[in-house]
């Protein structure tokens, strides 16, 4: 079966993000970018399916500006077979991403689409769900375990009360949670080999998708700074502060 994975280029999770002074967005100049960590988990899962002989081909897809090619190269180095960049310099909101992914799905006809549960830049947590709705496919979100048996996909998902297991008919959409797997270290020879794997570039126009934003972003602001904590010298002092200052009892 063919597996498709959506990978987004985001600000590296180690970077302390800052807002632009004019409140128009997050500062991206001179900031280290990387693959969205949940997407890395999704790629790892796809590659494991291939190594287990379940997947026949893994196709990585990214939507965004030219530098997304670097993110796709990382996916190829991790073991994806080929990559597709849908190149666009416009802002892509989850609905536009889902529509573009749907168009790619219609071309590629994968049996399984893996996504991250959310992108750590906007934390939207919408794309996978929207894509499933648009395609009319079953979805297993926040997956912490994926198993294929007798043509059915068993997805264990993390929910507030614990774990829930769903059985999905293929084709299906799965979004990866943190505990699904631990992505491998990319080997240096694979990085070199990834340069030779095919990477196709297409545009939203090629796919006939209107990507105009439906939501307007008014302002981006930093959260109010947390007040510094203090140290207490003894349990008695702690109890007294809880009582008199924090007034918890």
């Amino acid at each position, binding site marked *: 079966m063919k597996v498709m994975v959506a990978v987004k280029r985001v600000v590296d999770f180690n970077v302390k993000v800052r807002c632009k002074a004019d409140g128009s967005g997050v500062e991206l100049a*001179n*900031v*280290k*970018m*990387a693959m969205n960590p949940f997407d890395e988990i999704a790629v790892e899962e796809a590659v494991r399916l291939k190594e287990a002989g379940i997947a026949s081909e893994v196709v990585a897809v990214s939507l965004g500006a030219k530098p997304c090619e*670097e993110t796709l*190269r*990382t996916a190829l*180095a991790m073991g994806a077979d080929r990559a597709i960049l849908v190149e666009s310099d416009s802002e892509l909101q989850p609905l536009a991403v889902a529509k573009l992914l749907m168009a790619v799905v219609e071309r590629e006809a994968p049996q399984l689409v893996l996504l991250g549960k959310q992108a750590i830049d906007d934390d939207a947590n919408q794309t996978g769900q929207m894509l499933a709705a648009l395609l009319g496919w079953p979805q297993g979100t926040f997956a912490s375990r994926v198993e294929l048996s007798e043509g059915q996909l068993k997805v264990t998902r993390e929910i507030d009360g614990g774990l829930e297991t769903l059985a999905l008919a293929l084709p299906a959409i799965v979004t990866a949670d943190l505990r699904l797997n631990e992505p491998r*270290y*990319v*080997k*240096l*020879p694979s*990085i*070199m080999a990834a*340069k030779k794997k095919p990477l196709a570039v297409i545009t939203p126009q090629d796919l006939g998708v209107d990507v105009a934003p439906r939501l307007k972003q008014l302002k981006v602001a930093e959260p109010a700074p947390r007040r510094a904590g203090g140290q207490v010298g003894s349990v008695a002092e702690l109890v007294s502060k809880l009582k008199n200052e924090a007034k918890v009892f």
Partner: protein
Amino acid sequence: MSERLGITEDDRAIADAVARFAQNELAPQAHIVDRDEIRTTRYASQLAELGVMGMNLPERWGGIGASPAALILSIAEIAKACGSTASMIGAHYLATDSILIGGDDMIRDRYLPDAASGAKLGAFALTEPGAGSNPAGMITRAEREGEHYRLRGVKQFISNADDAGFIVVYAKTDPNAGTRGISAFVVDRHTPGITVSAPEKLMGIRGAPAHEVTFDCLVPVANRLGEEGAGFYTAMKVLDNSRLDVAATSLGLSEAALAAAVAWAKERKVGGEPLANKQGIQWMLADMKLRLEAAWLITLQAAAKRGAGEKFSDYSAMAKLCASEAAGFITDTALQVHGGYGFTRELPLERLVRDARILRIYEGASEIQRTVIARAMVA
């Protein structure tokens, strides 16, 4: 992200992959490695799997086809996490570079793929108790006995020696011919007649122990690297490469020290104000940054010359001198920024200072680098 001069996207991708491994696997252990003198040779197989142990080699012998700049960036990332590990890798490269530069395809085929795959670790034996900065003064002898050489002598400060699969040994085949009488040999570590001493008690890089090694053994003629008398030339070429590795290690330690100093200066309050607001501290940070960036540039310049196949002995000497002296200054100043806390063993500053100290000494002390630089100008 904007990059330093001459670094490509591929170089960055490789360095990022190495950095991830180094930060996850090496950095959390670096303190314990230092404290308990744990040999970083334990990481050799993981590093080989990643592709690092053969990174100095062409693809034909297990390398990855990376540029010299990618090699520099990768070593710097490892040193940023753990200086001992960078040193262990450097010693391995000294051995494999010797085989690559001095040997023919037959001996390259015999040793290099195993060295790249982590099956065999390399060690490099040039220095002797009476011959450090003056390798021509070595007295270890290799005397022909039929299809073998009888190797006799003592080598000093040999990193990786105990865990090595092979040791590249430099010895005199003709004691009357000066530097032209030196030849290089690959010796299997477990050849009868090799004695490795207990490790030296070192100030820093305590996870990369150095040993005295005594040889009284037979080495097959087929294990000689190149012609008799070619050893000194090989060693000099090998050192051109390794000085860049030392420069890279210096840069990595400096990066770690400077990052710690900046974070501390922003965090630490004096009289209700961050340390970073004090001009005295700002000037320290500025001087550290300046020396670090200057060292990066000259090191990348040397790497570019190496990549272009130009002669780069003087540039690698300048890179090593500039970067190792900068590392001394930067690690020491970073400790100063931390005040009394910097002097404790709870924080990594004192380890960085100790690890950086050897960089001005091994693979040609700062004084020797100046000689190399000057010679290229007046010779």
